C-alpha cells in the first residue's frame, strides 16, 4: 500500500528571494537521505510529497526525522478517488487513534467529482458519527483535524501533523570547520551548527602517542553519528604532538592550555582559509573549564579574525548532555580515552590569562614552522553514517 509524506515548507517560506534555493537544498538533502529506498519525490509551490511503500515506513520516517529544514509533516494515505475507498480508509485510520472530537476538511481539485467539498465533508462526518461510538464534531478545536484532498485519480487522507527536526536545510549556509575533541560538548555544538544549515566539517587534534588509536576511533564514531545530519563529513586529523610538547617545554606551565588553544586556533584559521570555510565552530561553554572563561576566550581568540561560533556557549552541562543523549553521541563521548586537551593538564591552569604572558612564552619557539608541518601532515577521512541499507545485499 502506498503512503505519502507531505512536507510543508514552514519556516522556509519566510525566505522570500531565497526560497527556491532553500527548497532545492532541502529536496536534494532528502533525495540523498533516501537514496537507497524506492520513493518518488515531487515538489510544488507550498509543499513536497514523498511517496513510498508502506512496508518501508519505519525506516523512511527514521531517515526523514534526521533531515534539518523539515518542521512538520503529515503521513497521508493514498486511496483511489471513489467514495467507498475513502469511507473505508477514514474509518480504519480513525479507529487506530484515540480522540473524542473531530473535524473533516475536504479540498477538492477534481471539480467533476459527484459531491462538492461541503457535501463531502457532511457526508464523511456522518459516516464517522454513525460508525464510531462516542465521537463528536468540533469545528473550532477538534482533537483530530482530518483532511481529505481529492484529486482526479487519487485522494490523500491525513490527520494531525508530526513534528520534524526543524532548523534550516544543511547547505543553505556556507562551510565552517568545527573542532571535535571526543568530549560531550563538541558533537553537540556541531549538531546545533548543522541545524542552522551550516556545512560543517570536523577537525580533530591528535597527540600520538600520548593519545591512543582508540581516541581517534572514538572521534570517527562520533563523526559517523553526526553524519546522519549531513550526508558526508570530512574529518581532518591534525598531528599536534610536536607543538604540544614544545609548549610544555618552553612555557609557563599554568599557561600551557591557553597557549595550546591559541595554537589550535591558529591552525583552524589556516585550515579555514585553505578549505574556504568562513567560520570556526567549537564546543566551548562559558566558564566550564579554565580555558573557557570569558577572559580566557578573549585572550585565545586574539590569534584569529575568523568568526568563532560557540553554539553551546550559554548552555548548562546538563542541557548539553540532554542533547548529546538525544543525538546518540553521549555514550561514545564518555568512553575513557585521553584526548589532547586532557593529556597535559597543569595543576593550576590560569583562568584569567594575560596576553603579554602568552606572547612571552610563544616567543621561545618557532611555532610557525611547526604549524606548517602539522598542516602538511593532516590526515583526511570522509565519514558517512553507518548505513545498513548499503550492505543489505551482503547481509
Amino acid at each position, binding site marked *: 500500500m502506498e503512503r505519502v509524506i507531505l512536507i510543508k515548507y514552514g519556516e522556509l517560506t519566510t525566505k522570500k528571494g531565497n526560497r527556491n534555493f532553500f527548497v532545492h537544498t532541502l529536496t536534494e538533502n532528502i533525495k540523498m537521505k533516501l537514496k537507497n529506498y524506492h520513493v518518488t519525490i515531487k515538489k510544488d509551490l507550498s509543499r513536497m510529497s514523498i511517496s513510498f511503500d508502506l512496508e518501508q515506513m519505519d525506516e523512511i520516517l527514521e531517515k526523514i526525522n534526521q533531515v534539518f529544514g523539515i518542521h512538520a509533516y503529515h503521513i497521508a494515505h493514498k486511496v483511489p478517488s471513489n467514495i467507498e475507498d475513502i469511507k473505508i480508509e477514514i474509518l480504519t485510520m480513525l479507529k487506530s487513534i484515540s480522540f473524542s472530537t473531530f473535524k473533516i476538511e475536504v479540498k477538492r481539485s477534481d471539480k467533476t467529482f459527484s459531491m462538492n467539498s461541503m457535501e463531502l465533508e457532511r457526508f464523511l462526518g456522518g459516516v464517522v458519527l454513525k460508525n464510531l461510538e462516542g465521537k463528536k464534531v468540533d469545528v473550532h478545536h477538534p482533537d483530530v483535524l482530518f483532511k481529505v484532498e481529492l484529486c482526479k485519480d487519487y485522494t490523500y487522507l491525513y490527520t494531525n501533523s508530526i513534528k520534524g527536526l526543524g532548523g534550516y536545510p544543511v547547505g543553505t549556509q556556507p562551510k565552517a570547520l568545527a573542532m571535535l575533541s571526543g568530549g560531550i560538548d563538541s558533537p553537540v555544538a556541531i549538531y546545533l551548527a548543522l541545524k542552522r544549515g551550516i556545512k560543517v566539517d570536523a577537525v580533530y587534534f591528535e597527540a600520538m602517542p600520548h593519545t591512543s*588509536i*582508540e581516541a*581517534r*576511533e572514538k572521534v*570517527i564514531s562520533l563523526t*559517523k553519528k553526526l553524519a546522519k545530519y549531513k550526508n558526508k563529513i570530512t574529518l581532518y586529523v591534525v598531528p599536534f604532538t610536536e607543538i604540544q610538547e614544545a609548549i610544555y617545554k618552553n612555557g609557563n606551565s599554568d599557561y600551557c592550555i591557553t597557549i595550546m588553544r591559541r595554537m589550535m586556533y591558529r591552525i583552524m584559521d589556516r585550515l579555514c582559509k585553505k578549505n574556504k570555510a568562513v567560520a570556526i565552530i567549537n564546543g566551548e561553554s562559558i566558564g566550564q573549564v579554565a580555558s573557557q572563561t570569558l577572559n580566557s576566550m578573549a585572550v585565545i581568540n586574539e590569534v584569529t579574525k575568523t568568526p568563532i561560533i560557540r553554539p553551546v556557549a550559554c548552555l548548562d552541562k546538563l542541557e548539553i548532555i540532554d542533547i548529546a543523549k538525544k543525538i546518540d553521541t553521549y555514550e561514545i563521548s564518555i568512553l575513557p580515552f585521553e584526548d589532547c586537551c586532557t593529556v597535559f593538564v597543569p595543576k593550576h591552569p590560569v583562568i584569567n590569562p594575560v596576553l603579554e604572558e602568552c606572547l612571552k612564552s610563544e616567543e621561545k619557539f618557532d611555532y610557525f614552522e611547526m604549524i606548517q608541518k602539522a598542516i602538511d601532515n593532516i*590526515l583526511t*577521512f*570522509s*565519514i558517512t553514517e*553507518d*548505513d*545498513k541499507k*548499503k*550492505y543489505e*545485499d*551482503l*547481509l
Partner: protein
Amino acid sequence: MVYLDYSATTPVDDLVLDTFNQVTKKFIGNANSLHQLGIESKNLMDTAVEQVANLLKVKKSEVIFTSGASESNNLAILGCVFAYPRRNKYILTTELEHSSIENQIPFLKQLGFIVDFIELDEYGRVDEAKFLKKLENDPVMVSIGMVNSELGVYQDVNTLGKLIHEHSKAIFHVDGTQAVGKMPLDLENIDLFGFTAHKFYGLKGIGVLVKKSTCHLVPLIHGGKSQSEYRSGTPALGLIVSCAKALRLAMESLDVNLKKVQELHAFLIEKLQKMSYIIINSNEYSIPHIVNISIVGIKPETMLHALSEKEIYLSTKTACSSNQKLSSALKALKKDDKISSSSLRISISHLTTKDELLYFVKALEKSYHELEFESRLH
C-alpha cells in the same frame, strides 16, 4: 549421493558463499586500519555484528567472533574461570558434552578444578532436583550443551539458567552449536553462548561466543585490537559477514525448515521401527534432526564403510570424537557397552528428501544382512 551427516557440517548456502566472495574481493582493508579502506571494512563489520546481535537479541558489545565452536567453548570456559580466580574451583557440566568441552576437563583438573557431572534422567535431561543439590556446592560455572550432538537430546536451558541464577552466583555457559538454526533461541538466562556457522549452511572457520555483560571473561588469544577485546587477530571480515548472513537466513526459515525436518523424521522413524535389529537411541527429547541408532553385533565402522560404498554418508558417534572407542554420551545414558559401542548417527536437514531416506533404509537393510551373514561365517 545421500548425505546424512548434517550435524557434522552442512553444505554452504550459495547466498552465503556469494557474500563471502564479494566481501573478500571488495573490502580489502583491515577493519582495524585507520585509513579509508579500513573504515569501510569496519563499517561493514559493525553492521554485521549488529545484525548478529539483533538476531540473538543481545547487545552489539556482547558478540565475539571466534574461529568456531571449539574456540568458543574454550574461550567461554577457560576465559571465565581465569576471570574469577577467587571463586570456588568447582565446575558443573554433563556427560553429554562435545569433545571441545569434555577434553578441557583434564586440563581444568591440572589447574586444580573439580569437574563434577550433573545427574541426568533416563532421557538424558538434567534432573532438576539433583542439579539444585549440586548447585549448593557453589560452582564457579555451569556448562550445559543446549542440544547433545550424538543423541540430539535438548535441555531446557532457559529454565536451568533461571535456577542457576536464583540459587547460585555461577556463570552459565551454553554450547548452542547443535541448536542454532534448528530450534528457537532465548538467551535471557544465559551468560555465555557459543556456536559455529558451518552447522547452519555457513562457512567453516567462523564461530561466535556471546558474552553477556553479566559476566567477566579474560581473552585466551592476546594481541592487537580486533573485532572484540576478548579475542585478538585480524577480523576475518568475509567470514564474519557471511556468518551474519547465514544466521539471518537460518533464523528466518527456522519454522518452515523445522516443519520439513519433523515430517522427514517421522518418516524415517517409522521405517526404522520396522527393523527389529535396530535400537533407536534418540528419544522424545531429541531434536528431529538427529536420529541415533545402534545395531548390536555389527561394528559401526564396518557399517559406515559398507554404506559409504553406496555413497551414503553418516557418522558413528560425532565426527569430532570418532577416534574414541565408546560414545561417552551414549554410555552415560544407556549404561550398556554393546549399545554404546555400536551406534550410528543419522542427521537430516530440510534439504533431505524422502527418496534419499528410502534409499538409505534399503541400503541399511541390505548391508545388515550381508554383514550379519559374514560375521556368522567367521
